[in-house]
């Protein structure tokens, strides 16, 4: 139930309903949640006209995802839509864990020095959706169809036919590719008869958003066995606009219908927040932990992303952030495929890489689930032993697991990577995501951030010495002008006085204090090939036109080894 009111988007009949035309759409996205809209904005910015089908007339009911990780903020930053989200969201860095009223452990996710975004910002999902929708509408080529519900999916060799239900009856829509971002109850997934594989826990939890003006700190507060909720766990976390997330573990076998009723919810929350603080319950729901995913995220021309592809339990903020990473991984691959610059195997690499990412999230979430809601007597015993020791003995505190917060997992073994052949420190190895670090600017100039400087496609970082004549300049220019262009950035310690002649597509990135060079363990001559999503594809101590071309082929799934690797990757299983 929810008492929040969202803006209603009018139902409008589509071109397919108004005329007899049934144009073949390049991409139809099912679901206008954070994942569907991030995908829509990303593809639309590459010039593709996008249709988004949304079964509801408004944004998500209830806040759902609330913690957005640095990587997600970086993704939205590159898509030009992070500013209103930063402005509206709540900052926090400290998470505290209590046992019976005493703090046993805390973590502090301090903003990293010289990073554009902090580790986390909190904002309720429906507000994020509203901002992403607005960003999509500014682009002019995203057609979001509200109250258009996919009911059936038929795959053909050349396209997918979607049957779409509207208040005025149904119509058929043809798409070259379909992105199913329609949530855990995905109608697309159900229509194709696909099931999740993985684990479902029995212990029920009550999740609620309450509106209150309270002096609780903007921290993540987690309790084991508190006096206000004996024997179970509880969580309190701040959102924007005086909204607070509450998550309470319920007794085994609790009746979900009964427990989400206001008469049952209110006293539990009253016990938690204390007397004298007025609050309204604006949304509540009862759920159990689920950690599961599809065996493959690609089925023919249908590609699954977000909760439609994988379901994660909430402690650790892995659902929304895993889904946004899906979108980011998919956008550039689908873009190249639609432009005829990469084979369909590039979509298999999406499935391979994001299954790797989802499995990491599933494994991490499962460990938290086991700690928060132990399912065997032995696990309960060890959990209680850890909590008991943690009050006095430091070694036990890091073992206290109330959820490990989402972080992007490096894709170290991706088939798109070119393995290292030169000596480097491990930090930015192939498959590592680039952090959005500050690029030095002159005093008075506005801040500039690395990821925002890299352009929309592949990027090459060529680290050069001051005043160097750049013998590689002609080759850099050739790569910058190729049919899959690599935007070249020559990273130099100082603006080169007389400057080398820069070929088109090559520009200077001045790095006077060597911040970028240090991050990348670079020396003069070092070259990094970065994918459009800012992941490292390859790196060498010395630039070679031939090697960069080969690495680009591999990173776009045009390398013969890629096909074998992705065929093998299809058989992986969820960690359990």
């Amino acid at each position: 139930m929810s008492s929040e009111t969202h803006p209603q988007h009018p139902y409008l009949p589509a071109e397919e309903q108004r005329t007899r035309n049934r144009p073949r759409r390049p991409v139809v996205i099912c679901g206008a949640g954070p994942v569907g809209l991030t995908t829509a904005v990303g593809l639309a910015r590459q010039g593709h006209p996008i249709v988004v089908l949304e079964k509801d007339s408004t944004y998500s009911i209830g806040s759902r995802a609330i913690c957005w990780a640095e990587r997600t903020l970086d993704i939205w930053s590159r898509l030009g839509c992070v500013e209103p989200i930063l402005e509206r969201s709540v900052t926090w860095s400290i998470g505290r864990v209590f046992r019976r009223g005493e703090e046993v452990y805390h973590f502090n996710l301090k903003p990293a020095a010289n990073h554009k975004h902090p580790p986390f910002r909190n904002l309720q999902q429906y507000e994020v959706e509203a901002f992403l929708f607005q960003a999509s509408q500014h682009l002019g080529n995203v057609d979001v169809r509200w109250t258009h519900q996919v009911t059936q999916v038929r795959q053909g060799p050349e396209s997918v036919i979607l049957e779409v239900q509207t208040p005025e009856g149904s119509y058929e829509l043809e798409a070259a590719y379909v992105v199913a971002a329609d949530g855990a109850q995905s109608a697309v997934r159900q229509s194709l008869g696909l099931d999740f594989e993985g684990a479902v826990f029995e212990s029920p939890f009550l999740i609620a958003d309450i509106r209150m003006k309270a002096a609780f700190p903007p921290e993540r507060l987690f309790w084991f066995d508190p006096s206000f909720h004996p024997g179970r766990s509880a969580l309190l976390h701040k959102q924007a606009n005086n909204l607070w997330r509450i998550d309470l573990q319920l007794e085994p076998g609790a009746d979900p219908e009964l427990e989400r009723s206001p008469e049952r919810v209110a006293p539990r929350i009253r016990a938690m927040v204390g007397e004298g603080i007025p609050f309204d319950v604006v949304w509540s729901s009862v759920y159990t932990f689920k950690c599961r995913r599809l065996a493959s995220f690609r089925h023919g021309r249908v590609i699954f992303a977000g909760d439609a592809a994988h379901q994660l339990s909430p402690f650790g903020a892995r659902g929304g952030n895993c889904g946004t990473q899906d979108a980011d991984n998919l956008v550039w691959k689908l873009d190249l495929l639609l432009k005829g610059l990469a084979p369909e195997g590039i979509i298999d690499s999406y499935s391979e890489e994001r299954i790797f990412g989802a499995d990491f999230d599933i494994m991490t979430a499962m460990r938290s689930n086991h700690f928060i809601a132990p399912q065997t007597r032995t696990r309960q015993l060890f959990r209680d032993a850890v909590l008991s020791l943690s009050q006095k003995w430091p070694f036990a505190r890091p073992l206290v697991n109330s959820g490990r917060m989402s972080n992007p997992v490096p894709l170290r073994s991706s088939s798109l990577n070119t393995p290292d052949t030169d000596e480097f420190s491990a930090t930015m190895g192939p498959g590592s995501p680039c952090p959005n670090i500050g690029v030095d600017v002159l005093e008075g100039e506005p801040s500039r951030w690395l990821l925002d400087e890299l352009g929309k496609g592949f990027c090459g970082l060529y680290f050069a010495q001051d005043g160097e004549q750049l013998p590689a300049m002609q080759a850099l220019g050739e790569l910058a002008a190729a049919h899959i262009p690599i935007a070249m950035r020559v990273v130099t310690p100082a603006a080169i006085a007389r400057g080398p002649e820069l070929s088109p597509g090559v520009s200077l990135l001045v790095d006077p204090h060597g911040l970028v060079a240090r991050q990348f363990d670079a020396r003069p001559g070092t070259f990094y090939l970065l994918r459009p999503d800012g992941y490292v594809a390859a790196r060498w101590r010395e630039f070679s036109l031939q090697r960069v071309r080969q690495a680009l082929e591999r990173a776009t799934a045009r390398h013969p080894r890629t096909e074998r690797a992705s065929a093998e990757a299809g058989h992986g299983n969820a960690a359990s």
Partner: protein
Amino acid sequence: MGMLRVELGLERPDDVYDALMRTFDGLTEEQTQLVMAKLILLLANHIGDAQVLSEAMAIAKDDINQGGLAQRDPKIPPRQENAS
């Protein structure tokens, strides 16, 4: 005192804890207790130092002597934490 290490010594605590839990998955109550006892004896032998072991034993029994798991702390959770 000070022989027993009470600061974190595990390199990857979550991995180790998970592996430990998996050791007991699927065991009966009796089997679990037997495996636990053997595990403690193995680790005790590896440690060797009787002084260290005796400190560990004392800490492990610490809150049992104070009433242990049956006693509940009546204090309400702190509400006004400083952000520092």
